[in-house]
Each structure stands twice: as C-alpha cells, then as structure tokens.
C-alpha cells in the first residue's frame, strides 16, 4: 500500500486487488445478500481505496483499513436502499401491515422465487433480516473467521460491545431460523407423502 500511496504504483495496486478481492466480495455479498451488488460494491471499495490512497496512514494494519472501507461502502449502500424504499412506500401508501422493514435485500433472488426455499435461501433471508449492526459482527466472525478483538478494532468499538452484539445476533438468528428449520422437514415429508 505504501508503494501505491507514494508512487502511484499500479502494479502494486493490482497485487493488492488480487490478494483482497475475494474477501471483500464475500463481505459485500453477505452484507447485502446480493452477489451482483456484492461484485459492484467490491469494485467500489477498491476504487475508493485508490482514490483515498494519499490519506492512508501506515500506523495500523492495512487489512483493518480495507475492511473499514468495505464496510462503510456496504453501510452507505444499505442506507441508500432503505431510504429509497421508504420514499417509495410514502409515495404509494402507508405500510398496510405496519411492519417496518429495516433490512435491505430481503426479497428472494429472482431465480430463487420459482423454486422451493432451500436451506441456503433460508439462511440468506434470515441474515439479511438482521439489523445491520448484528449482521456485521456475524459476517465478520462466522464467515470471515475474525477474532472478536479484531472485529472490535475494525468497528472501533469496545470488545464488550462486540461480544454483546454477537450474542444478540445469535439470539435473533436462532429466533428467525429455528421455526423455519423445524417447518422445512415436515414440508418435505408432506411432499413425499403426496408423491
């Protein structure tokens, strides 16, 4: 990164992208629940990294710096989507059910709508239904296998807060998944009995 910052070294930047594009893609996809959007946000992350290369201070770890940029871009995008959704809802009618949606891409993907909800889709939906603060810690801890202390460093939070957020995330996730998982096998048995 130092090479990129001081000498605008494109080759070094290319190496950085090659090293980090997969983790950042995973992060963006899991935060938004949409692989296409994840791909776009990954590119935006690297574009911003290059754009802000002069601001980089090598006092901390580069990975922390990059994760922060990726997360900020995800948060910005999710906030933008939420605002757009609220704007559309206001324009049409007040929410009839009164349910407030504080999650982003909770609609099933188009190719999944036609098929029965599989476990993968159940998990995706459950995760995107979690509020952002809980989804973030869960994505970083479970999928990226980061230590809780590292997550606290990235999010610039006390470690205790990260622990409590992770606990709350697990509680909420269990509440969302358990009924569906219990229902899923019974559906399968019903289907088999019909056949």
């Amino acid at each position: 990164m130092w090479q990129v910052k001081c000498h605008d070294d494109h080759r070094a930047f290319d190496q950085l992208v090659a090293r980090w594009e997969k983790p950042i893609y995973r992060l963006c996809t899991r935060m938004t629940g949409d692989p296409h959007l994840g791909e776009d946000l990954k590119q935006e992350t690297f574009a911003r990294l290059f754009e802000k290369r002069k601001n980089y201070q090598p006092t901390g770890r580069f990975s922390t710096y990059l994760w922060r940029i990726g997360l900020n871009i995800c948060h910005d995008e999710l906030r933008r989507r939420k605002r757009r959704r609220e704007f559309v809802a206001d324009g049409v009618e007040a929410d009839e059910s009164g349910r407030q949606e504080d999650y982003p891409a909770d609609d099933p993907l188009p190719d999944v709508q036609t098929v029965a909800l599989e476990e993968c889709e159940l998990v995706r939906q459950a995760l995107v239904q979690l509020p952002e603060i809980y989804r973030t810690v869960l994505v970083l801890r479970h999928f990226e296998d980061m230590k809780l202390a590292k997550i606290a460093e990235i999010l610039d939070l006390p470690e205790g807060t990260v622990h409590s957020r992770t606990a709350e995330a697990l509680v909420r996730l269990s509440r969302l998944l358990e009924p569906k998982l219990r229902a899923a096998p019974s559906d399968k048995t019903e289907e088999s009995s019909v056949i």
Partner: protein
Amino acid sequence: MNHPKPEEWVQYVFGEASSASHRRLQEHLRECGECRQEIEAWQRSRGCLNAWKLPRMQRRPEALAPLLRWAVATSFILMLGFGLGWLTSVRNSNAGFQNALDRAQSQTAHSLAALEARLAKTSGAETRQLVQGLTVMLERAREEDRRAALALFRDLAKQHVAAYVALRKDLERLASLTEDEIRQARLTLVQLVDQTPTNEGETTKQ
C-alpha cells in the same frame, strides 16, 4: 442458579474462551437445561450459516488471459499431433498418396518462396520510395531553415545600419553644438579681454 452472561457464551461458542472459562461453562451446561437449550440453538444456527454458499466471483478478464494462451497453445499442439498421426498413417497405407503429398508440399514450398520474393521486392521498392520521400522532405526542411536564417541575418544587418546612422547623426549634432559653444566662449573671452584695459585705465586715473 446463576447463569453466565450471553457475552461469555459468545466466546464459548466461537472457541475463544480461556480454558478455565471453557471448563466452567461446560460444567454449567451439564447442569442447566435452559442454557443448554439456548446454546444448542445458537450452535444449530451457526451450523446453518454454512449452508449459504456464494456463487463464484466473476474473474477479471486479465486473469483469464494466461489461461486462454495456454488453451490456444494446447489446442495447437493437439492439432499438430493429430495431423502428424494422420499423415503417418496414410503414408503407411498409401504410397501413391504420399507422392502426391510430396508434390503438393514442394509446390506449396515453391509458391511460398515466390510469394516471399514478391513480398521482399515490393517491400524493398516501398522502402526505397519512403527513403526518397524522407530525403526530399529533409532537404526541403533544411532549405526552409536556411532561408529563415538568411532573412534573420538581413533584418539584423538592417537594424545595425539604422543604428549606426542614427549614432552618427547624433555625434555630428553634438560636434556642431560643441563647436558653437566653443565659438561663443571665445567671443566672451575676447569681450572680457577688451573690457579689462579700460578698467585698469580708470583705476589709474583715480
């Protein structure tokens, strides 16, 4: 019964609890059904998370380039192998065909040589033309430079002559002025000389 805090369970579930804490929590799980149920639900949920597999990331085109090069090289080698194999098999089975093939090869070699010679001739003529064009262009450029330099020198000479004439005029004017002044000074001196004896005579008379 004192239940451990959820924060402690987080470290336990993710394998970050210290060994003492781990033992204590495990002990508690054995005794407390409520906590056991909760933590099992957490672990089931964590296990379910692994079901969310991501689609493969789109590869960058430049990352595919070496692969493409290898694919082209491999297919070329394979085609070459097939061709050679086919030719050798035909040679064994049919000598007449081999002769025809040899003839065709020699004809192809001849035509290739003729084509090469024609190309070389054409390219030689083109090169000569280009060189001639370049020489003419260079000469023209040199001539233009020479003309421009000459014009510049002439301008400079004219400027020098004009300056010389102006300087000479100034000097002549200065000389004439000086001459006038000298004449005037002489006259003044003469007048002074004329006046001097009269004054002396007047003083002697007194």
